């Protein structure tokens, strides 16, 4: 499920450009953030100036997303807007993502309540976090921490998967992320 919060999307029609030079059409494309990366091939050029897309996800969805990155190292950052250290440490994940665009996939999983979606998006936008974002469907509670196997019940929590999709590390301390990711990046996939 993709949640579509209010956002301004500026759609530029190629045909309109050729006809009158430069015409910007402010479309009422459904209210919502349109992620240019997920736009279908051949779709009109879409420039998103809204908040990043955030999908509500359960454990199966997270596993599915991780599987789409087979061949890359995957870092999952479990965080929440209510968690001070998570917010403080989030730039580490953003920096790692920017430093390894081809070989590392970062996925953020917010453990906020679904009703806090806009606050989640505002934060992600402020961080220029250009990777995939999920919002736990479980809300704040035991179920979510268990579903995502966050053993000690608190966030920040990081999980790092190797290129073969095998979970290799669980940790809380973001200062160790870079070295653990680097070590896994040096390993070739088994297949």
């Amino acid at each position: 499920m993709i949640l579509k919060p209010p956002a301004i999307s500026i759609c530029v029609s190629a045909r309109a450009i050729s006809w009158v030079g430069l015409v910007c059409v402010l479309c009422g494309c459904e209210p919502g953030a349109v992620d240019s990366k997920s736009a279908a091939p051949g779709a009109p050029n879409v420039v998103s100036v809204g908040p990043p897309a955030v999908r509500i996800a359960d454990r199966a969805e997270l596993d599915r997303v991780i599987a789409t990155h087979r061949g890359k190292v995957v870092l999952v950052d479990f965080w929440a807007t209510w968690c001070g250290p998570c917010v403080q440490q989030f730039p580490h994940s953003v920096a790692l993502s920017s430093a390894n665009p081809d070989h590392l996939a970062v996925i953020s999983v917010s453990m906020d309540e679904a009703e806090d979606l806009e606050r989640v998006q505002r934060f992600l936008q402020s961080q220029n976090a250009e990777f995939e974002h999920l919002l736990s469907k479980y809300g704040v509670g035991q179920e979510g921490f268990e579903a995502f196997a966050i053993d000690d019940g608190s966030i920040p929590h990081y999980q790092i998967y190797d290129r073969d999709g095998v979970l290799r590390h669980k940790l809380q301390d973001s200062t160790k992320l870079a070295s653990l990711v680097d070590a896994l990046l040096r390993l070739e996939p088994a297949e």
Partner: protein
Amino acid sequence: MIRIAALPAAILTAAFALVFANSAFAEDLKIGDAAPAFAVTGIDGQEYSLEDLSKDVDVVVVCFTCSGCPVAQAYEERLIEFNKKYQDKKVAFVAVNSNNATENLEGMKSRAKDKGYNFLYAFDASGKTAESYGAKVTPEFFIIHKGKVAYHGAFDDKQKEPTESYVGNAVDALLTGDAPKVAETKAFGCGIKKAK
């Protein structure tokens, strides 16, 4: 060679290391283990020990919490209701704040006053109580019955619209002489922030 670019990262590293200075915990208590003795300072300035709290009651509920964590704050009203419900029963309740890196007795006093706490709120200034119980998050609960840990975990199943009150059910069972049906759950919330 000194890499200038690495300096900001080093400073950040040092700052985060302070936040996560509390990674060493005692081995987790198990259900049936003897409850470790503790002494904490109430916001009234008095010392309270587990021994004091255990006098004339059948059950002691120890809640590791704090003033600043939004999850802990979401449970304040539930703790007040819990204490209203059990005030005439043989139940003692203490809310222990072990965030000695970030909080203090003065802040706790004002939080308790603002929110109308009807229960004992006490500071674990050394952080030793959290350490001996292996408490890691706020809020996190231990129920002690006859000197032993009878329940450990969350207050209920979720912050929003809970469907099962683990602590309430466990206390009810213990008061009628039964063992709690659910004795262990996963506490969730903010990490306890203990000073080095």
